[in-house]
């Protein structure tokens, strides 16, 4: 019955059959469950936004690129030694969690905010991997409107996407400050920004990174500006289903590997030398363990021993991923801000590889 869950069936049917799919299955140890299924299949199925520059979108060659895409590529590199063995599925914000729960995708890497109720078994029952982008909700307005604060949005219409934390934060913030407003909500980002550009609403609200990213694709990016207010905390990261530690642990440590690599100064350019150096120097215990020269860290996760070098060689460390997609080397030019390594006063921190 698992094959049912792979077909693009109606959401409910998918949920019914998908959840029915694992009936009678044994409780999984590492390497069993979904991870084993992915290995057997030979490709990773990844749910992405697909229309968000910097996070996941198709470049001019039709190839998916972005931070969210690199998460999938890193996991595929760790599993198959080939970052391209990923099948992407574009999901809207309101269908993403159902698609994950029903088994349509193995991993959801779609700039999703970690919250208690999404994490908890009594809520959405999801498993959050480490946050890969610390964000906050912002509000974008046309420069010509002269609006510079939330208060000036009183009585105005604000566009947003259906089924996001954005929608809830908006309601909370405006309710706190007793500012009346009208929300107009759309199913997809495309519709939301199209309506905003057509002047349906005085402002559009989303994660600040998303607003900055979308702004770059506007006809006249300079005509729009972000208000200084930050409405919420939005820690964004990939997600897997609950109760499948094999897959969620593997994903977690794949991401930590990119962060640890940055901290240790290992990049896609010097990985070969670092590996050779580790092999030649038995005293470099940390480096040898991290790169899988000794110990069995990879094996414990159900991954190959050399999963870290594979990842770094194909997608690079966290810093490289950041600057390539949203940072200094990209169009977005987003400041690293909270997303600096903890050594530079940021929040990016990997637990020890031991």
């Amino acid at each position, binding site marked *: 019955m698992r094959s049912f869950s792979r077909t693009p069936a109606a*959401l*409910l049917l998918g*949920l*019914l059959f998908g*959840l*029915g*799919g*694992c*009936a009678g299955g044994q409780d999984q140890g590492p390497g069993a469950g979904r991870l084993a299924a992915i290995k057997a299949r030979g490709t990773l199925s990844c749910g992405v936004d697909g229309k968000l520059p910097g996070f996941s979108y198709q470049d001019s060659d039709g190839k998916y690129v972005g931070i969210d895409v690199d998460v999938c590529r890193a996991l595929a590199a760790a599993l198959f030694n080939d970052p391209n063995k990923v099948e992407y599925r574009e999901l809207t*914000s*309101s269908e993403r*969690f*159902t698609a994950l*729960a029903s088994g349509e995708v193995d991993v959801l890497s779609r700039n999703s905010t970690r919250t208690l*109720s*999404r994490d908890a*078994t*009594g*809520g*959405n*029952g999801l498993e959050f991997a480490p946050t890969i982008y610390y964000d906050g909700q912002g509000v974008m307005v046309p420069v010509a409107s002269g609006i510079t604060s939330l208060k000036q949005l009183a009585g105005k*219409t604000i*566009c947003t996407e*259906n*089924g*996001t934390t954005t*929608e*809830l934060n*908006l*309601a*909370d913030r*405006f*309710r706190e400050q007793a500012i009346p*407003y*009208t*929300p*107009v*909500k*759309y*199913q997809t980002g495309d*519709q939301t920004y*199209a*309506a905003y550009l*057509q*002047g*349906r609403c005085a402002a559009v609200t989303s994660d600040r990174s998303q607003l900055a990213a979308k702004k770059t694709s506007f006809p006249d990016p300079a005509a729009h500006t972000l208000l200084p207010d930050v409405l919420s905390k939005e820690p964004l990261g990939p997600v897997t*289903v*609950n*109760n499948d530690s094999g897959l969620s642990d593997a994903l977690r440590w794949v991401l930590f590997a990119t962060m640890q690599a940055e901290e240790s100064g290992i990049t896609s350019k010097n990985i070969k030398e670092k590996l050779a150096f580790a092999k030649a120097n038995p005293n470099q215990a940390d480096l040898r363990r991290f790169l899988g020269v000794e110990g069995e860290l990879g094996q414990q996760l159900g991954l190959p021993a050399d999963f870290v070098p594979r990842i770094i060689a194909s997608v690079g460390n966290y810093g490289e991923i950041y600057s390539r997609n949203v940072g200094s080397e990209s169009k977005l030019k987003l400041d690293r801000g909270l997303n600096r390594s903890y050594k530079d006063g940021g929040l990016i921190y990997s637990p020890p590889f031991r």
Partner: protein
Amino acid sequence: MTALPWWRDSRKVGWLVQAAVGLGLLLVVALLLSNLEHNLTRAGLRLTLGWLNQPAGFDIAETLLPYRASDSYGRALLAGLVNTLRVVGIGLVLATGLGVVAGAASFSTNPLLRGLSRTYVEVVRNIPLLLQLVFWYFAVFLTLPPANQALQLPGLQLAKSGVYLLGARLVNGELVGGWRLSLELAALLTGLVIYSAAFIAEVVRGGIASVPKGQWEAAESLGLKPLATLRLVVLPQALRVIVPGLNSQYISLAKNSSLAVAIGYPDLYAVAETTLNQTGRGIEVFLLLMAVYLGLDLCISVLMNGLERLVSLKDR
């Protein structure tokens, strides 16, 4: 007369086969349900409706039913349902009016009117509704001018801030008073009515065509004008063919209203989508949705069946 053995009694065998198939079906359903139950429990999700009383926390743009973000999910869904009913209610009336006019016009002696009616039906029927809704919303209503240059039609003002009926006045660059429809509602109604009316026009045309030509001629020979002929002679006879066809068009309209979500109108489906996302109660929300749309369509059917009995030919 000897009793027939049961396996040769076609009535008994028939019953047995029916019972066996029924039992098999029940077993399959029971298996699926227990599977679902088992896996939901494993995933730590139990089917429950307790979340309906939790505060929803999101706002809804326009509600007939008073609603605030601090109200419960149940209230939010109810507000969504009322919004759906508003669209369906207004949509049914307008689509019927337009459909009857377009259907009757295809019998007009005026070739221009006839051609117009045929073109309308053929064009509109053959373009997907979703496409039409998106067209009306993004290409027509969202390109309206600002309030101080609102398009003026008799009793109707069209501007970016909304569609105003019954005489709104311009105060400080904003339209006030009158009856305001949001652009989302206006676009949804326009799209739904124009689409459904094309199908209704075909049903009406079929009904009118079913009335023998002799009836027209008889009415004409009595000196009745064409419109009076239609109203007094033809339509009453055509109705008994039209009504059953209308039934399924009305049901379609009610179901199609859920496409509202594509253009930002907060109908039941849109509210349910947010609810599903915030609560993670996919199965419960979808079961509720299906039950509500089924109930809505059954209500329409019951009413239309009543109407059908009313207009059917009485045996004398």
